[in-house]
């Protein structure tokens, strides 16, 4: 039972990280109708900047620079590439982001080489105990920070003028534009928010129990794609639920790997995809996604 609770808690913390990234996917999809495959390289960029700068300028300044830098990179991509292709087919835009992702990933992989960069979190590898269930401080903080950020996002989404503009744009872009909503501005802010979320996710994804920044953490963001899809690509709440489901399922599969050994070693890594395919078979638009009404 204790093991179960511990896995559940760790799964939730992993899920919180996934939820941050998945929320980024969903925000970008709603605002600019782009399915971005470059959240992975944004996350890696954020973590890389923080790790490289934390020694010369200290952790907190490095974290700030990393988050701002990643958001700037996301906005740059939106301004230079995506905003000029408004109305292009979804597939072309997705492929475009794959191209950008490839470039950033290759460059950072080249810079990191075979090293493991240490981020130097002030909380290091400490662990806390909540009701007798142990979890690393890093993961506990991840839950708290992700909770605050996601809560703030939902409030902004509901009440701020940007949130209202974005919901209007997602509902009917043309009508929103005619009502004086600047779609370009909405889209740019969406990319900015997604960049911030990716960098924060990168900050926690590279902390204990993960050893540090390696190119492999790019795959973390990739595993958040199933989270966004199974929640429903156009549902912000779905991203949260999807992230938590994927996180808990992954942690459970890794924790009980002796019991499910017949599925092979390292089954935990493919759990997100198995869960996603299973959900999509039953609900082709995800749990909370807008259903496609045409049938052919």
């Amino acid at each position, binding site marked *: 039972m204790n093991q179960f609770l511990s896995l559940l808690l760790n799964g939730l913390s992993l899920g919180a990280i996934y939820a941050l990234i998945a929320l980024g996917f969903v925000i970008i999809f709603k605002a600019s109708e782009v399915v971005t495959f470059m959240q992975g390289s944004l996350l890696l960029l954020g973590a890389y900047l923080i790790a490289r700068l934390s020694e010369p300028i200290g952790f907190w300044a490095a974290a700030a620079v990393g988050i701002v830098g990643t958001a700037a990179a996301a906005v740059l991509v939106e301004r230079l590439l995506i905003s000029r292709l408004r109305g292009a087919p979804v597939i*072309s835009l997705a492929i475009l982001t794959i*191209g950008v992702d490839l470039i950033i990933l290759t460059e950072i992989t080249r810079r990191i080489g075979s090293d493991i960069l240490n981020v130097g979190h002030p909380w290091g590898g400490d662990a806390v105990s909540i009701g007798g269930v142990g979890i690393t401080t890093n993961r506990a903080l991840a839950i708290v920070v992700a909770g605050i950020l996601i809560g703030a996002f939902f409030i902004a989404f509901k009440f701020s003028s940007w949130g209202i503009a974005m919901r209007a744009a997602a509902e009917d872009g043309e009508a929103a534009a005619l009502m004086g909503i600047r779609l370009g501005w909405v889209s740019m802010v969406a990319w900015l928010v997604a960049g911030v979320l990716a960098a924060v996710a990168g900050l926690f994804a590279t902390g204990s129990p993960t050893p540090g920044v390696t190119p492999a953490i790019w795959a973390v963001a990739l595993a958040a794609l199933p989270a966004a899809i199974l929640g429903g690509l156009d549902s912000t709440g779905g991203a949260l639920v999807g992230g938590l489901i994927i996180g808990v399922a992954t942690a459970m599969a890794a924790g009980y790997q002796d019991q499910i050994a017949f599925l092979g070693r390292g089954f935990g890594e493919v759990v997100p995809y198995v869960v996603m395919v299973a959900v999509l078979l039953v609900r082709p638009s995800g749990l909370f996604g807008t259903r496609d009404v045409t049938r052919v």
Partner: protein
Amino acid sequence: MSDTSTATRLVKGVVLLALLVVLLALPLYVEEFWLRTGFAVFAAIIGAVGLNLLVGTTGQLSLAHAFFLAVGALTYVYVSGDPGGSAIEYGGFGLPPIVGMVAGVVMAGLAGVLFSPIAARLRGIYLGVASLGLVFIGQHLLNTWTSVSGGFNGRLAPAFDLFGFSFGGNEEPYLAVLGVPFGQAERLWYLGLALCALACWFASNLLRSRPGRALQNVRDSEVAASVMGVNVQEYKAKVFLVSSMYAGLAGVLYALSIGSVAPESFSLLLSVQYLAMIVLGGLGSVGGAAMGAAFVSALPLVLQQYSGSLPFIVEPGQPGIVASQAAAFLYGGAIVLVVMFEPGGLAGLARRLKRQPRPPQESPPVSTTSSAPADSSSGGTPR
């Protein structure tokens, strides 16, 4: 009108014939490196043409191509390979290679058919991400099922032979043409050329026939296609079958080209490379897919070969850019440029160069509906 179209077809035929003659004569002149690269390119062209049928013609985004290549390659080595392995034992039937090749194609097709019920339910980008899952699940399967794959280090691929004519290391029976001895590289070149020509011919005929039109109709609008009497689900399942059979054949040739297979080779990166090929070449065009495949698959090999004479490329392990990274930069950048400025890809560029300058009073080409992926028939105006 019919005059010009006959003339165009004539010119096209002559160009293709000339290309074929050059390709047939090439092994008599060029060195082994280029022949080996050529074989890898032929394999990539077959895979890219198959993926293009699915993504370019039918508009179904798939990132699962690497998985179907893996199925083809692994089936080939298992059916035609012998049992062996020192650290990790693996099995094999040791049947003639041609049986293994056919089995590889069939099994890949079967895998495509098994996936198609999922594919048929999903639309657009949902399918793209679900197919992404197939790559990861496939890699896990390969790493786990060591009796087939040989585990992490993989296993050797048996050399190909056809009715006693070997395409492998022993070079029997001895053959020399115009004083050039035909070794492994020359033989594989012709094998690849023949299979590749067949694959392209089949695909271009398919595109011009009734099923091809139906597939394009599905891409442009599923509702419209269904109203016109096209059974959308059936066609989607069939194009998945054909596309994964192409991938299976490409996988078999890939195994022959490398000489061994390892699970690691069939990662997401391979799928991305295939996607890059068809985007660079031009979605929906067979010739474009071939050009894109040649560019993306030959680039790292050529950069590696000439890394000594290229100033910015270094050997692996040294600080700097190694050949595979340089290639990734180049085709990553090329993808961005193509999507931005020439959605028709290399094929669209070729079409544009061929066309006469328009008289000014003629209206500009009308852009098609935004739901059609990078349609090139409208003249490929950048959006």
